[in-house]
């Protein structure tokens, strides 16, 4: 609980702990209430985010009038309760429990990853007996055993607290680890040949109170006392989970989840947790390069920047602004996005800018829908998931949606082409053929309006949507890259008609929301304003903006293929991996003129670049990012990059200088202040505010003032990683601006003001924002934030060929993406390339599981292994997107509404 909650009308009761009387929320568990007031009751099995089981017996206390020694972790507080946590009886029980826990423990602390940050060690020191009286033979187990590709188990160290098994079952919904046997022989086990292959397995390592569970990627890599940590946000996907990033000797070694109430509740997915290894890889590009005699060769920064500027200048001279284009920008920070947007739109004056690759949703839709917050899922009237398989694309959002559906009783409805991770929690799963979700959405909306669809699932869904009050949260993504985005847009337009509908746009690429918000999309300028609406405002501020709307990524690639793009900037962009239409991407990259790659790795997409400008990666750079709900949070520099890589935004500023434009931006914080000043949606969100906003700031802050919790929590927990880590807890001051400066104790938070026009909100955040932001007084009127008019193109209705199967190509967590490929730990987790069919279709084709088939679309053909899958609807075929070697993109024509396949046996 935060101090804000206490002041916002929670019922309080009065209890006395060790003589001190305090006010605590009614019904809260005693262990938590005591902790909030500075009394740490020792515990092992209790975890704030899981149901109490009361099994380790470490937290027993005395309560006046209660017989025996009740566990503080299962006892809710009651008014007038008098608790003693320090009595002789309590102390002797604590001694006893610790002695019991240690009798069979191997005491191999010197070679244990947990040694030095081990709750069992720490608790023994603080509460335990001085010596063990156990002289019998200890239990022995083979050690350690792998329970998955990422996690090892040492059963001798296990204290049977059930944290890992409860996490797997209650939180992840993957009950793949269990207690096996009973009594003193109890062990954690997996089923033979069915490992704990959960996308969330690393969390069990973090919450294990001993060294029983260790992470393969981290084992023996560091000792806790060599580690320093900063608080940051994970940018593996667009959820932006809060995390503590730890390094040892200038090398990132570990990422731990921080418990942020609005975002991740302390959890991380394994891809985020272990993916940071990518930046440690040897093949990182560490120095700028230019192409000489057909070869990329290392050069100095001035040389590289001059070459890049020359290339751009030539293109502008030859073909004008419309012959210059920028692709990418969604992998960087907000600051990167803004400065590049300013460079592209204000200096180059091109609107041919797109952070997506035809694999997302039109910016007008993504930015203009009425937005919901992640935490709105918890008490929504209902959740509607349109298309996207959250477990694969935004895993920790999946946890949140799953919790709402499975634990909090929120009805969940999915409208998808195939089964997803959430299917088993859905009250209704509405399946549609690719390209026809708008029909299903329309039927659902009219069923809500009272016109029964005559389809049980739709009517059940409509019933579930009307059963409670509150907001309907629609989570929409771009699930199937083998169908045109129009179909999804059409469905979104229908669902927007549901009253009190709010949208979470679950586009997965890390900072795609920040990039779109800051103008890296055709037709938009920074701060969620359209080119037209923002023209006067930005002309005044920047001196110039593009004269007319430009091309989106598919248009840019098409133009490039036609030799109409004289210069192309690839800003961390991988069109070959991300654009649904592989043929178009290939032709576009080949046809582009002068190409500038701004990236960390050489990829197939950028290997033909004329100039390569290496950039700092996550963990090496300070800044902010915006998650899928519009929450701006900080990312923090933890290590210094080897070589001379620069932050992206600085490169843009350097290029601008070479094109005679001085942005006068020296630090990321100065960029933040400029954004706060010029980008309407970011009004008030300046560096000073961001430094103090514990959970970040949701845009626009004028509408989300209650999400602002200023001041940092300081809580008395030092054990690094097994307790939920609170934001701001005990981390090293990070980066040049000091992540943990100004430690304010809990209780001192100030809600932000909320009055006035967005730009004035900067004032309302008091002295936090006061210093440098000059509220705009004269000049053009502040542009209005873009909202979507709901106008959807009528999706074309493709004819059905009875013998064809319609392709569904969706992203999976471990794929052929740059990061997944660069992380050695993931190699074994990438699933095999298979075409998955409904059993009836498979039989009709006359093949068996494991046989090879030839599939052919209008575009291309592939030979693949088939497998039947009950989650696949008849008439469709599922091929994961972007698996190494899968090549789904070669089948897809981005301009076609759907992708139909002929499948035949080649046995």
């Amino acid at each position, binding site marked *: 609980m935060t101090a804000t909650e206490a002041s916002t009308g929670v019922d309080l009761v009065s209890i006395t702990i060790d003589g001190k009387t305090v006010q605590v929320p009614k019904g809260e568990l005693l262990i938590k209430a005591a902790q909030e007031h500075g009394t740490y009751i020792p515990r092992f099995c209790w975890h704030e985010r899981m149901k109490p089981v009361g099994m380790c017996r470490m937290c027993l206390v005395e309560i006046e009038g209660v017989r025996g020694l009740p566990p503080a972790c299962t006892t809710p507080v009651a008014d007038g309760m008098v608790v003693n946590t320090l009595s002789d009886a309590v102390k002797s029980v604590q001694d006893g429990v610790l002695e019991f826990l240690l009798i069979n423990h191997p005491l191999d602390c010197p070679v244990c990853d947990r040694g030095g940050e081990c709750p069992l060690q720490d608790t023994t020191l603080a509460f335990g007996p001085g010596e063990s009286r156990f002289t019998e033979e200890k239990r022995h187990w083979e050690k350690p055993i792998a329970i998955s590709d990422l996690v090892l188990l040492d059963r001798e160290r296990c204290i049977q607290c059930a944290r890992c*098994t409860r996490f797997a079952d209650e939180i992840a919904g993957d*009950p*793949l*680890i*269990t*207690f*096996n*046997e*009973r009594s003193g022989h109890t062990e954690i*086990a*997996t*089923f*033979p*040949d*069915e490992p704990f292959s959960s996308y969330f397995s690393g969390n069990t390592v973090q919450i294990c109170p001993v060294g029983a569970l260790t992470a393969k990627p981290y084992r023996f890599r560091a000792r806790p006392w060599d580690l320093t940590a900063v608080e940051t946000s994970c940018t593996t996907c667009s959820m932006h989970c809060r995390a503590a990033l730890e390094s040892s000797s200038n090398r990132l070694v570990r990422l731990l989840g921080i418990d942020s109430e609005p975002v991740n509740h302390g959890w991380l997915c394994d891809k985020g947790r272990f993916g940071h290894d990518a930046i440690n890889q040897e093949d990182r590009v560490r120095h700028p390069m230019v192409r000489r005699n057909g070869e990329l060769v290392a050069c100095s920064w001035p040389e590289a920047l001059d070459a890049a500027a020359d290339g751009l200048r030539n293109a502008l001279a030859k073909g004008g602004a419309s012959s210059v284009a920028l692709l990418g920008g969604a992998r960087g920070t907000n600051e990167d996005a803004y400065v590049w947007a300013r460079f592209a739109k204000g200096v180059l004056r091109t609107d041919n800018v797109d952070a997506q690759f035809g694999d997302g949703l039109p910016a007008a839709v993504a930015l203009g829908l009425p937005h919901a917050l992640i935490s709105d899922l918890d008490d929504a009237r209902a959740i509607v998931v349109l298309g996207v398989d959250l477990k694969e694309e935004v895993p920790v959002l999946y946890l949140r949606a799953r919790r709402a559906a499975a634990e909090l009783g929120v009805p969940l409805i999915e409208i998808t082409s195939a089964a997803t991770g959430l299917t088993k929690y859905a009250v209704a799963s509405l399946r549609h053929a690719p390209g026809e979700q708008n029909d299903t959405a329309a039927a659902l909306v009219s069923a809500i309006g009272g016109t029964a669809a005559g389809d049980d699932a739709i009517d059940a869904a409509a019933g579930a949507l009307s059963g409670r009050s509150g907001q309907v949260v629609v989570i929409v993504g771009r699930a199937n890259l083998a169908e045109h985005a129009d179909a999804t847009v059409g469905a979104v337009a229908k669902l927007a008609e549901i009253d009190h509908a709010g949208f979470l746009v679950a586009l997965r690429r890390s900072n795609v929301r920040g990039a779109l918000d800051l103008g890296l999309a055709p037709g938009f300028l920074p701060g969620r304003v359209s080119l037209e609406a923002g023209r006067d405002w930005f002309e005044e501020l920047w001196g110039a903006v593009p004269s007319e709307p430009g091309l989106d990524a598919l248009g840019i690639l098409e133009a490039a293929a036609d030799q109409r793009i004289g210069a192309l900037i690839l800003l961390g962009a991988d069109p070959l991996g991300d654009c649904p239409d592989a043929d178009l991407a290939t032709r576009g990259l080949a046809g582009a003129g002068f190409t500038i790659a701004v990236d960390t790795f050489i990829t197939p997409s950028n290997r033909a670049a004329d100039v390569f400008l290496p950039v700092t990666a996550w963990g090496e750079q300070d800044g902010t990012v915006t998650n899928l709900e519009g929450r701006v949070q900080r990312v923090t520099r933890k290590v210094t990059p080897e070589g001379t890589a620069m932050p992206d935004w600085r490169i843009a500023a350097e290029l601008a200088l070479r094109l005679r434009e001085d942005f006068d931006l020296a630090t990321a914080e100065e960029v933040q202040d400029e954004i706060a000043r010029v980008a309407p949606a970011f009004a008030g969100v300046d560096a000073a505010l961001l430094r103090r906003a514990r959970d970040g700031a949701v845009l626009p802050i004028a509408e989300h003032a209650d999400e602002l919790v200023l001041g940092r929590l300081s809580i008395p927990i030092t054990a690094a990683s097994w307790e939920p880590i609170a934001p701001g807890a005990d981390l090293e001051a990070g980066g040049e601006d000091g992540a943990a400066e100004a430690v304010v104790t809990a209780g001192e938070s100030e809600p932000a003001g909320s009055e006035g026009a967005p730009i004035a909100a900067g004032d309302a955040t008091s002295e936090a924002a006061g210093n440098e932001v000059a509220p705009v007084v004269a000049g053009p009127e502040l542009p209005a934030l873009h909202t979507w008019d709901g106008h959807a193109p009528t999706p074309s209705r493709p004819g059905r060929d009875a013998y064809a199967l319609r392709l569904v190509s969706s992203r999976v967590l471990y794929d052929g993406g740059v990061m997944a490929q660069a992380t050695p730990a993931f190699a074994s987790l990438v699933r095999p390339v298979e075409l998955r069919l409904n059993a009836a279709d498979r039989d009709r084709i006359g093949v068996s599981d494991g046989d090879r088939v030839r599939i052919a679309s209008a575009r291309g053909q592939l030979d693949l292994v088939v497998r039947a899958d009950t989650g696949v609807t008849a008439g469709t075929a599922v091929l994961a997107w972007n698996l190494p070697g899968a090549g789904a993109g070669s089948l897809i024509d981005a301009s076609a509404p759907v992708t139909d396949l002929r499948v035949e046996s080649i046995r």
Partner: protein
Amino acid sequence: MNASGPGHFNAANLVRAHEIVAQYPKPKSAILPLAHLAQDQDGWLSPDAMREIAQLVGETPAEVLGTCSFYTMFKRTPCGKYVVSVCTNVTCLILGGPEILEHLEERYADDGDVHVEEVECLAACDNAPSMQVNYEFHEHLNPEVAAAIVDDYKSGVLTARGVSGGRTR
């Protein structure tokens, strides 16, 4: 739930399995009876059987394993046709149970058909020492009498009732 899956239960037992699941307000409750059924069919509770049970009750195999491994009656490695359970708890202890156990263990050490195990009190203390063979009670024992009884099972003079039905071994 259809009959697809590992196809471990024989046809009659699969019918029985569905009846068992239907007896309970929640399918997970059927784990124990289904495990008994599988063990009666096969003589032990194999991973394949647990996989099929998992499918029948809609849980993961790991959950079925977690539940079943808690209970000592379920044998998770193949064992002999005759499960001979000898009590050594206190009443049998003072009246000769351990001697019977020792005798039978030695006598059938190399007999793959006979699985001799030590068990806790069988609720037959009035006639101690006692044992069960495939869960049939035998009381007032001494080592020789106990061995003769086991031999009678082996030769077919004695048979046990298969209580879960569907015994095929």
